[in-house]
């Protein structure tokens, strides 16, 4: 049994009802899971002794703009035991968008989720420190949302007065 088959089998065994889609594109395995199961799936993938996905390499999101489930969060996790990177996805349909944090499972997700919150406005529930990552404190918008203008909103970022 190769790595991908092993992962698919283990995940299906336990999460058959919550898995929405499993896709294999150019040797990249992606698992789309219902959003209320993302923490359970993450913990399972990390703690299962055959899988051991102990490293979270990235958390980001996609703004689909016109879809009913507008946002998708994307997690890239890595197993040293299998030498394999797995992609998890979760579609979010509520407004404002929220999803449970995975930072208790992978501490590295802490800052990734802050970045995702900063850029997309997705609230990570129970996140220990959900502050902005790049934009200044007090900024009210989320720049990577599709409805945010490229040049920004005039006056939303403070600039010093012109010196004489």
């Amino acid at each position: 049994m190769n790595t991908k088959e092993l992962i698919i089998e283990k995940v299906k065994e336990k999460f058959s009802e919550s898995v929405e889609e499993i896709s294999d594109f150019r040797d990249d395995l992606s698992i789309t899971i219902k959003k209320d199961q993302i923490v359970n799936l993450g913990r399972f993938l990390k703690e299962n002794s055959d899988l051991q996905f102990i490293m979270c390499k990235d958390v980001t999101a996609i703004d689909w703009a016109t879809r009913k489930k507008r946002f998708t969060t994307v997690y890239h996790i890595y197993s040293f035991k299998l030498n394999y990177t797995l992609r998890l996805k979760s579609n979010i349909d509520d407004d404002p968008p929220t999803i449970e944090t995975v930072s208790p499972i992978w501490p590295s997700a802490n800052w990734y989720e802050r970045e995702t919150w900063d850029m997309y406005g997705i609230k990570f529930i129970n996140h220990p420190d959900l502050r902005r990552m790049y934009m200044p404190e007090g900024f009210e918008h989320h720049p990577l949302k599709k409805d945010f203008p490229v040049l920004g909103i005039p006056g939303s970022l403070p600039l010093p007065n012109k010196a004489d």
Partner: protein
Amino acid sequence: MGLEAVLQKDGFLTTTIDAIVAWSRKSSVWPMPMGISCCAIEMIAAADPKYDIARFGSEVMRFSPRQSDLMIVAGTVTYKMAQVVRRIYDQMPEPKWVIAMGACTSSGGMYRSYSVVQGIDQFLPVDVYTAGCPPRPENLLNALMTIQEKISKTKARDFKNRSLAELEHSQN
């Protein structure tokens, strides 16, 4: 006959205080290297033996704004960084000059984006804009020479006397 020969004979020169002051100022412009991104590398190259900014009396890169006359803003200025750049500029003693080095500082350059200030002249009085992405060291030297030309035309009365209260306000 050289100048030394004239001076040996107890010679003297007549000039104006303004001319002497302006000449002294332009001959030792101490830059504040505000190297924020890639332009900084070219700014450093301008100081190396090949281009040798010391030929123009500007080799003393001061990392304290309180000791510098010229701010070389070399790199992309974001809205977040703009506050810092302005704060450092305010700490420089008068008289002071500003070079906007490169496309980013002059106009935002290729970063036509919400996070980048589209030209530092929105919050700083720029004396010379330098084209290039990044500009070559020769180009920076040219900007420096332009500044020197500008300084040589100044007179003492061009610079206003700022009150102590005003200075304290701007430096805090």
